[in-house]
């Protein structure tokens, strides 16, 4: 019986860890959409870039923490380049052109990864501080995965604090609700949007570096995580922080428990969930605009 219970606790922790990865990715994607009305299919590629940059940094410096620091910074810088070169002028181009351009970016990144890092799956070790296993709730669980959960919760706490307690947060919330109104507040809204975009990219890069020790670093890791992340964002409601949290938890748990309870159906389950939500609540569970 206790073995049974600990099995479910382990699964719940797995689900939570997966949810946190989804959260780090989806929160950037969803706020970028809410503010900039931009659908960025290349968000998954930025996550993969974070993993590759992290790999190189960790290998060169001989420490995991080099990856942890370098990945968000480098990916944010690449984000800046993308913003100035492409995204700024695609903002009002409609969803189809955005989907196409960022689909093109996925292709470009794919080959950039191949040229830069080769086709073989790479991996780097977790930090020594969090290696090994810990005991929690009566189960033994990899410490590094607990670190991921903790990191996700920390980012979540920091973001909600910024959004609810600071002026920038107020501008972001107003911007998601109504651009014109935000512009009326007399602050340089463009600069805030740009900042949000950079933070979104940095979080994607961070997610890549954090996921790398658990999953392996492959050229297609970005495309593989893109679809569940998009599903998280759409189920939660585009542009909504609350939606990103709810969607991440929902998809993380459905995917984890689905593959345990009904392996045959697991793959279909999240798509069925998305289809169901879109039919019943076409704007997602927590639509950002009232």
């Amino acid at each position, binding site marked *: 019986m206790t073995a049974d219970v600990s099995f479910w606790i382990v699964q719940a922790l797995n689900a939570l860890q997966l949810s946190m990865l989804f959260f780090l990715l989806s929160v950037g994607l969803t706020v970028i959409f809410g503010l900039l009305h931009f659908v960025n299919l290349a968000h998954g590629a930025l996550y993969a870039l974070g993993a590759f940059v992290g790999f190189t940094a960790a290998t060169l410096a001989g420490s995991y923490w080099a990856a942890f620091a370098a990945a968000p910074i480098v990916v944010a810088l690449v984000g800046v380049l993308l913003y100035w070169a492409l995204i700024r002028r695609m903002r009002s181009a409609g969803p189809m052109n955005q*989907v196409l351009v960022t689909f*093109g970016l996925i292709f*470009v990144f794919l080959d950039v990864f191949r040229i830069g890092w080769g086709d073989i799956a790479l991996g780097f070790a977790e930090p020594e501080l969090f290696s090994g296993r810990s005991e929690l709730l009566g189960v033994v669980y990899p410490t590094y995965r607990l670190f991921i959960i903790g990191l996700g919760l920390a980012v979540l706490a920091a973001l909600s604090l910024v959004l609810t307690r600071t002026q920038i947060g107020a501008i972001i919330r107003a911007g998601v609700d109504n651009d014109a109104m935000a512009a009326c507040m007399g602050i340089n809204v463009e600069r805030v949007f740009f900042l949000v975009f950079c933070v979104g990219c940095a979080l994607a890069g961070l997610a890549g570096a954090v996921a790398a020790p658990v999953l392996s670093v492959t050229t297609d890791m970005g495309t593989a995580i893109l679809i569940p992340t998009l599903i998280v964002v759409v189920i939660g409601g585009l542009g909504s922080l609350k939606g990103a949290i709810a969607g991440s938890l929902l998809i993380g748990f459905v995917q984890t428990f689905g593959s345990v309870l009904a392996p045959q159906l697991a793959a279909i389950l999240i*798509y069925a969930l998305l289809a169901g939500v879109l039919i019943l609540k076409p704007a997602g569970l927590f639509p950002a605009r009232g």
Partner: protein
Amino acid sequence: MFHQTPLKTATVLLLAGLAVAYGLSTGFFGLELLTEVAILAILAIALDLVAGYGGMISLCHGALYGVGAYAFGSATVLLGWGAPAGLAMAVGGGALFAWAIGAVTARTHGIFFIMATLAFGQMAYAYLFESPVFGGNDGLPGVPRLDASALGLDLNDSLTFALTCLALALLAYAVSAALLRSGFGRTLVGIRANEARMRVLGLPVWRHKAAAFGVSGALAGLAGALAAQHTMYISPGLLHWTVSGELLIMVILGGLGTLVGAALGAGVLVFLKHEVSRFTDHWHLVVGLVLIAAVLAGGRGLYGQLEHLWERRRAARRAPPETPAPDEETTGHA
């Protein structure tokens, strides 16, 4: 609105002529490419029908294509039915699946429609990937080709098969063009332009959208059945969303909402990929950059740009340069 302009007719005939000439002068590998182009042209036309004219940007046409291939494959390999029955299953299955997707997603728009179609397509992909009945990830080998010996055709011959696919691509174009020139097609364009107004005018919009999606699915199913016969093997990879993404690339490269552009785009992308991979492994990079450039250049696509220049020259020739002639028919007969 769709008009079969002289420019369009000329482009269709030119493309068909080029394809036949290429087919007659090339070897086995060239015929493989030509067949692929013809099949993807049908699929791209099917996508343009709903995306270019109905405003429904679908990311599930790869899945409709795959459903057609699987319907044909399972009818012939698993059930032992003849190829004609398989063909009917593919067309009917594609139409039915597409109609259902169209009906359910009719109320979603923009990015939500794109995501909803993505979800349904990936659902089919995931199902076939996991399903032992259909061979799972390994797919089904040994798919037969249609026996057309009664017509004096041997479809196991590469040239015959390629030309047959080409003829069917022309047929797909003709059917789509005829549909777009009908009341049904005009109304579809009306929905793209202003769906809410169409509804206020008394049109049951969701039924119209679902029907259009169904027709598109029937064509995609046909393309799938041809693909299954072409490679004589089917796998879940046909249904993956990236196939739908590449299809959108074809349509945008050739010209969204021009119909003939879709076929042109299929040809350009297949040959571009082929030519690039002769020099480098990194065709993704090239195609990605070409796509980005195409969208940034205004997104008209190759045929769209040609048509744009053509119309401008015609307008300039008919009227003094500084005053365009808005009160004249600028397009051909309806």
